[in-house]
Structures are given as C-alpha cells and as structure tokens.
C-alpha cells in the first residue's frame, strides 16, 4: 500500500485493528491449543475448572507423570530442531539422493524415515535420557508440569486406532488419486472447449455441488447393501457386497468431489495460455499428446492445490464413511464418535480428546507446509467469479 499521509492510519485505528486481530487469533487458535493441552493430562486435571490446573496438571504430577524444567527445555529443543531440520536439511537431502528423477517418491520415503526417526527420538530416547539425568539436577529436576501420554497409548495401542488410521489413509489416498486423474482430464477439456455442452456440464456440476450428501447416501445405501443380489446376473457368484468396502466409499467420495474438482482445475487450466498447446498441435501433436507433453509439466501447482482440497474432503468426511462403512473398515473421524458417545467415564472422554488431537495433527502439518497453495486455492475460484 502507498504511504501517502492521508492513507497512514491514525493511532486509535491501529490500536483497535491490532486488538481485533489479536482477539481473532486467540479465538481461532484457542480451542485447538486447549484440547491439545487437555489430551496430555489425567481426567481430573483435564476437566478442571481452574485453567491453571489444566495447564500445570497438579494431579498428573501427583500421579508420577511430571516433567522437570530440564525435560521441558530438552523437549522444546528437540521439537524446534526437528522443524529446523525438516525445512532446511531434509529438502536438500531428498533432492540429492532422489533416484531416477522420481522426486516425489523420494519425498515420501524421506518424510517417512524422518517421521519415524522423530517418533523414536522423542518417545524412546528422550524419556530415558531425562529419567537418567533428572535425579542429579536438584531443583531443575523437580517436576513442574504434569504430562502423560497414557491416553495416546490407550487410543493407539490398546484400542488399535492405527487400524482406523490405515483405513483413513487408504480412503483419502484413493480419493485424491482418482479424483485428480479424472478431474485434470475433465478440467482441461472444459477449459479448452467453449461449447454450450461444456457450459451446461459446469452448471449441472454446480447444482450437484450444492446437494446435501445425505440425499445421495439415501440413494446408495439400499443398493449397496443388496448389491450382491443386484449384480449377480452380471458377475455371477463373484458379485461383491459394496456396503463396507473402502473402494466403494472411494468411488462415492470421488463422485461427490468431482464438481468442485473440475471447477477448480478448469480455472487453473484457463490460466495456462491456450497458445501453448495450440503450438504443440501445429507441430503435429494430437490433443492428448499436447496434454501429456506440454500441459502436464506446467499444471502441477493447480493439481497440488486441488489435491489438497480433495484430501481434506476425504479425510474430514463423517457422513458418508459412517453410513457406508462397517465397524472393521471405519475411518478415523467416524470411529471417534464411538468414544464420545460412550462417555461412561471421564477417562473415555480424555481418550476421545487424544484421538481427536491425533486426527488433527496431520492437518496442522498440512497447513504448515502448504499454506501458500491453500490460500491460492481458496482465492482461485473466487477471483474469476
């Protein structure tokens, strides 16, 4: 913005807008921060009336799960170091050791190894160092903050939450890959065709986007439950029951997501000048070759952004997955409703909180890494109208 005298803000306006921003940031972050804190305390502390006893957790310390000043400093140091390494050291390493130009593959491997190394260092090496050193530190070694990972252990190990995690991973990855494959093709076709048909397809897609998902599920459910009998004339005895199958849910979520995907990718493709693929066609390429060789190398920013939103849809879905999957194949989000509906003890509730925090932790990382793409995706549809 220009700095002419008239545009410069008077002091009272600066103060109010600063105060408003601070208040907004507090409101935006507080509930998330708070459940993260609660998930590390014993139930008495987690649901205490006094916020200070939630933060410092006297009962948790009394239970023998206290952290000393030394442990807190060491833990923060490890977390900070991990973030620093992840953003400064890991990318170079990945690029240097990537095999056969497949950079994305080495990214996946690199991130996996890095994550496992972090979990190992943080949950196995660090506690043993701390318990070894603390007794010799005097006042620095006395516990000041209560912190226990027992609820995470209960959720992930005892209640086998990792099964739900794997199901979520399968469903989400399936949704992202399939909907991007179909969506890029359709988005490109729609962006390069000015026909009436293309216009009507987009309008119908807009109407489909507005449909409540439960309306659609009401259509799937009877068919999916009886699909073995319905499909028998075609597939014989191999006819599958679609109810409870992750890949059937993937298909459903892909379809639900298609309207949004093609709208978004179309607007990205419209930003790629048509001269680019026209030049390729003049050189003798077909439309598909032009798409494959000229458009694909330059379309990745748009595809990554759209992929992020597909990821969010698949990962965050409650309605479709809870109705179309059965107990064994449940993804994480519907599985957590089992915890908070039970509500027999306060321990169950804190376990539900720990499960909830586990679910949103990957999303937190996602915003950290892809903030720029998310913002560009949110504005892409809007600015074009």
């Amino acid at each position, binding site marked *: 913005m*220009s700095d002419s005298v008239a*545009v410069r803000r008077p002091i009272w*306006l600066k103060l109010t807008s600063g105060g408003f*921003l601070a208040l907004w*940031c507090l409101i*935006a972050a507080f*509930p998330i921060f*708070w*459940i993260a804190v609660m998930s590390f305390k014993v139930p008495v502390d987690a649901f*205490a009336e*006094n916020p200070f006893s939630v933060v410092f957790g006297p009962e948790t310390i009394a239970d023998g799960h206290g952290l000393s000043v030394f442990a807190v400093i060491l833990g923060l140091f490890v977390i900070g170091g991990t973030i620093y390494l992840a953003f400064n050291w890991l990318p170079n390493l990945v690029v240097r050791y990537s095999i056969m130009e497949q950079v994305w593959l080495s990214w996946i491997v690199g991130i996996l190894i890095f994550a496992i190394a972090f979990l190992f260092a943080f949950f196995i090496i660090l506690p043993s160092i701390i318990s070894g050193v603390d007794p010799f530190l005097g006042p620095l070694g006395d516990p000041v903050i209560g912190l226990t990972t027992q609820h995470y252990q209960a959720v992930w190990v005892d209640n086998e939450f990792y099964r739900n995690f794997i199901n979520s991973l399968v469903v989400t990855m399936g949704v992202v890959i399939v909907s991007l494959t179909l969506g890029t*093709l359709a988005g*490109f*076709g729609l962006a390069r*065709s000015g*026909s009436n048909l*293309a216009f009507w*397809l987009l*309008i*119908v897609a*807009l*109407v489909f*986007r*507005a*449909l*409540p*998902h*439960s*309306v*659609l*599920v*009401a*259509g*799937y*459910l*009877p068919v999916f439950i009886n699909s073995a009998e319905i499909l028998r004339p075609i597939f014989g005895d191999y006819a599958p029951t679609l109810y409870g199958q992750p890949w059937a849910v993937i298909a459903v979520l892909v*379809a639900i997501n*298609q*309207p949004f995907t093609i709208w978004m990718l179309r607007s990205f493709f419209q930003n790629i000048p048509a001269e680019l693929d026209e030049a390729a066609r003049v050189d003798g390429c077909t*439309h*598909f070759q032009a*798409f494959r060789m000229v458009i694909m190398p330059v379309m990745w920013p748009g595809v990554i952004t759209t992929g992020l939103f597909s990821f969010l849809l698949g*990962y965050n879905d*409650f*309605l479709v997955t809870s*109705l179309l999957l059965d107990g064994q194949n449940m993804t994480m*989000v519907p599985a957590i*409703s089992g915890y908070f509906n039970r509500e027999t003890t306060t321990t169950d509730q804190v376990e539900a909180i720990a499960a*909830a925090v586990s*679910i*949103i932790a990957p999303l937190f990382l*996602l*915003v950290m890494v892809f*903030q720029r793409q*998310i*913002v560009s995706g*949110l*504005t892409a549809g*809007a*600015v074009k109208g």
Partner: protein
Amino acid sequence: MKFKTFSAFVGPSVVMMLLFIAAPLISVFIQSFYLTQPIFQTVEVETCTPGFLTQTCVTELKSQPTLDDNGKIITQTKFVGLQSYRNVLELGRVASAFSSGKLAEILTIDFWKALRFTLTFTLITLPIALAVGLGVALAVDGAVRSLRGPIIFISLLPFIITPVIGALSIRWLFIGDGIMTALLENWLQTDISMFAQGWTIELLMLFYRVWHVAPFAFVVFYAGLQTVNQDTLESAIVDGASRFERLRYVVIPHLMPLIVFVALIHLMDSYRVFEEIVGFSSQAHVISLQWLTYDFLAPDDSGNRSISRASASAMLTMIGIVLLLMPLLRKTWSDHKGGQS
C-alpha cells in the same frame, strides 16, 4: 476441440457423476414412493409353563416375520404413493396446531423443527461470518507485513480442521464445569449448564460455524483487497472522503462480487449443517434437515433402516436446495443468453 476429443477428456468424470450422483438421485426419488417391509404372518403359539399338577398352557396369536428357506426375513416392496411424505411432514398435526392456535406445537414435529433450525442457522451465520471475515481482512491488510504470514496460518486452522472435531473442541471447553463454563458462572454469578437446553446449544453452534467459515471469507476478501484500485482510493481522498466513506463507496463495491461468491458458498454449506449436531450431540434438542435424513438412514435399535422415509425427507431437502439456487441459476442462464446473442 471436436466433440469426440472433448467427450474423451470429460467422459470419465461425467460417467462418475452420472453413476454416483444422478443415478442415486433418481433412485431416491423412486424409493420415496415405495415402502419395503417384512411380511408378517399371524401364527398361533401355545406356550406352556410347568405348574402344579398340570401344565398351564396359554394359546395366543402372534405376528412374526415370515422366513424363507434360508432363514432370511422375506420382505415385500409396495407402492405407497405420498405416504412417506405424509409421515415426514405430519400435515395432520400441523393443521390441528394451526386450528387450535398453538403454533409452537408445529416445532415438536421433527421435520418442522429441523427446517426451523436449518433456516435460522443459515440466515444468522451469514451476515456474522461475512462481517468477521471482512473485519479480519481489513485488519490484516493494515498489519505489519512480517506478521501477515503467521496470522494467515493461525486463521486457516479453524477452517481446515475436521468439522466434527472442531465442534467437539468447542464442546469440550464448555462441557460440565469446563473452564469456559466456570468463567461464565464466575462472571454472571449463576449456575450455567450449556448442554441442558436448546438455545444455549444453538448459540454454541452458531459460534462454531462462524469460527469455521470466517477464515474462508477472510482469505477471499484479503485477496480482493490487494487488487483495490489505488488511484480511485487516492481520488476519493482528494475529494475529502473520510475513512468510512472510502470503505463504503470504494472498497465494498470493489469486493461486491467476492461477497456474493462467499455468501453463495456459505448458503449452500450451512443449509447442509450436520456435523454440529454430531459434535455437540444435540439431537435431543436441536436437529437439522440433513441430520434428519441421516437419522432415518442409520440403523435403529433393531437394525432396521427406514429408507423410504429417509428418501422422502431427502427429496424435501432437495426442494429447498433448488429454491435456494434458483436466483443464481436464472442469473447464469440470462448471462449465458446475453453472452451469446
């Protein structure tokens, strides 16, 4: 691009949408006129209990579902016309409520209760979310450049978080004697229980929805603010326009298309309000249209799903969406016509 290449590009996506969106819609429409029920037969059952000297035997008529050879319950599907719609709408009770003058009784019927909540929810959150989004966008636009990145990061969190968990995280602040309830009790000096009555839950739901969508409005408006014409702003200053007048007559008109866009998306999304009901477990007090269909679809205690009633309520929800989108569709249609001629 020839039609053939166009259809090769668009084909797979269109097939998916036809198969998984259009076909279910048609099947929901048809299902809503049919009812599938197990066939019951009346059997005479003699039950005997040992008694003194002789057994006491009772013969009674019981109706039980007919089983086929495999021991499965035989069901039959019959055409019931508008019966499912009548079951959902309960027009008889609505009419009697009207005639007796007790309009509040209409809101004891599930469908009307859900409709009332869905509409008030949509209409109340719309202006608040727009205003908060615009406010944050203006404040961030005036903030120090180095702070903008972190602020955008924090603001995106409520938007990106899983909706059910977002609702839960707010619920956990208020549940029982949680810190927020304790704070409110301290402040108001009364005993508060946020989840014991409908209107307090509704307040929390409204708060949650604004918290969840304001970031979206903020990001869109913030992007729009970057493209405000500086020359127009400066000439407004030369003309002596105050800060508020510049906002009112230059900035807001510039943002108008974006405001309409965000409002439309918000209307579509909050008409589908559902996750709040799950997250706040409010079904005893407050329900929404989409939750009503969900509830019909979910198996009840004996494992039955009332598909037919779910279809009827789904079709009624659909009508609402069409009404909501009608102005937009008409405008697009006339724009398209105008663009061609």
